[in-house]
């Protein structure tokens, strides 16, 4: 069966311990999470968890049904990977040297990223975009000496005027 990347958005009670209940379900059922983000939402009582995973159709149905059984889970939707707005943030720090400094600055311009810290030893860059862009940028930066980097994982919303509570097809 074909395996696809899927993005699941979950509204949960904004309470202590809820994140571990959600992730424990993935561990227990043997599903591997590719990326996970959590944060506040438009209503203070809920947090939004965005999870991406690579899964077959059957696994997707299983994950969604198992999530819906959790008491603190209020809503689960699967976002259409093609038709949603999704962003990831990357912070990357590369070694600054006299020879390479101009190349680094040029690369940040071409990729439309932003330098946010600049010292004699290092240049720190912020990049946002979809995952492919971030992947491509990191790949390019491997030319230089990467000191440290971290990426947030995907946050995603539906296009248009709907929200998580609107009618969705599974």
């Amino acid at each position, binding site marked *: 069966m074909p395996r696809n990347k899927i993005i699941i958005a979950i509204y949960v009670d904004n309470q202590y311990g809820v994140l571990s209940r959600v992730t*424990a379900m993935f561990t227990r059922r043997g599903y591997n999470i590719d990326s996970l983000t959590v944060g506040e939402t438009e209503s203070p009582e809920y947090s939004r968890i965005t999870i991406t995973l690579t899964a077959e159709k059957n696994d997707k149905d*299983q994950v969604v*049904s*198992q999530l*819906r059984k959790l008491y603190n889970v209020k809503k689960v939707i699967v976002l259409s990977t093609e038709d949603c707005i999704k962003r990831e943030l990357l912070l990357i720090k590369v070694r600054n040297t006299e020879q390479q400094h101009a190349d680094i600055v040029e690369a940040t311009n071409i990729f439309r990223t932003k330098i946010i810290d600049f010292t004699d030893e290092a240049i720190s860059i912020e990049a946002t975009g979809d995952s492919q862009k971030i992947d491509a940028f990191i790949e390019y930066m491997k030319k230089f000496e990467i000191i440290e980097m971290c990426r947030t994982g995907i946050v995603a919303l539906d296009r248009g005027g709907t929200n998580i509570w609107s009618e969705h097809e599974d």
Partner: protein
Amino acid sequence: MKMTGAQILVETLIEQGVDTVFGFPGGMVVDIYDKLYDKQDKIKHILTAHEEGAVHSADGYARATGKTGVVIATSGPGATNLVTGIATAYLDSIPLVAITGNVRNSMIGRDSFQEIDITGITLPITKHNFFVHKVSKLADVVRKAFELAQSGRPGPVLIDIPKDVQEAVFDFKKQPVKKPDPIPCCDDEDINKAVKLIKESKRPYIYFGGGAVRTSIGEDIIKLADKLDAVIGCSMMGLSEIPSDSPRFLGMQGMHGRFASSVALAKADLIIALGVRFSDRATGKTEKFSLSATKIHVDCDRAEIGKNVPVDLGICCDIKDFVDRLIKAAPQRKNTEWIKKVEQLKQREADAYEGLPFLPRDTINIISDNIKPDTRLVTDVGQHQCWAAQFFKFRKKRTWITSGGLGTMGFGLGAAIGSSIATNTRSVLITGDGSFGMCLNELATAVTYNVPVTIVIFNNHALGMVRQWQKVFFDGRYSNTTLDRKTDFVKLAQAFGAKGFKATDKKSFEEAFKKAYKVKGPAIIDLTIKTDSLVLPMLKPGGTFNNLILRREDISDAEK
């Protein structure tokens, strides 16, 4: 009214209709026990020998009645002793509320004496669990716990209450009990699709499980089978829902199920699965399971549909509603060929067993013939459990109590005590020498409360079920499955204050059983069984029901 947390807990239990709790006290629940002391007229507390016994008793109480079982344990080791019992209830979808004490909020997270993160430990084996931070939340948490335990697909819920919350004072007002939301009905469209599949079928088989027990639809299943001219089989969890002598009923299917039901399942062209989860024990290798049959799966838990076996029509709804409507909508069918074929299977099964002396089966038959219909049959786990499942003649609903999903050795005695206390009727425990060794401390409980439980130990001096695997699949290398113990079960019974009997064959067993069954409180029969008796049929690992091992002679075949 102002009350302490401990008092609020007890009052909420009363409000929720709890009349019996099982438990064991300790430092972090001493406040709760103090308040239970005041309410002995409303709530009976059964003090067991071990917390594991208490949780199995609460589980047995729930299985025998359908009500929620309640167990109380202290923090730390008290709480961890519940774990096996909670997991047992979880895998069999049994409604249970487990209440544990914990150290004060201010002591949490410091590895304080007897502090354990029991909500963390039980996360994957509860429907949900609660750590109660504040006394203001306590009553509503308890109410929610009872609602969750019973709603949809039932299961265990744990409430962990730190000691300072038990001491703190808050207002309590009694509330009416909230009924769990009903499970949705099915759509007309689903019924139409089912009818279409039925019309295309010539060999229909109805497979039911614990969900049918839960919704008590035995009679409806028989009516549906009559209409479809179908045969019926069930999982371990479905037993006792329909009488064993129902003409269309072939008994339990599966790895150690009846031959006719397992083979019929493999030969069917339509399987209607009601309240089951296609467990590997009931279906054999799930990937190879009845690949050619069309499958309709109806369950109240959407996550079960398509989880283990892909199905052609999956319906998440109240199975009773589905069956009722299908009986009305389905055409009267006639499948003469199929019924004839199944009759032949039954004959082959009968030829393989009948006439041959076989003490395990004869024993179960004697028990069947000598007990009242409402006596609960409780088992432990092993060969004795399989023999009981295969041969016992069930007559009444909810009279079969066994650990199906987790297969917990040591479940039996606690569960038997709980079910007898719940229903005020006798239970017969069929156990093995191995399993009984794991729970015999609860004899003390049975004696103290004078619980009418007749215990039959199938004493084969072995961990027979494992030994059987070693015989068939490991060339008879019996590593650590021979029980060369010197335990004298008759004296053991006497030491606990119970009656003990010994039996070695059919005749002496029948005599002993008739006596033991009349004893008011607990009695043990130590029955000697041949060490190498086998549970047959048997499914080869990775095999299908088309090539079951039916006779001893076939075993060498399996080894090849």
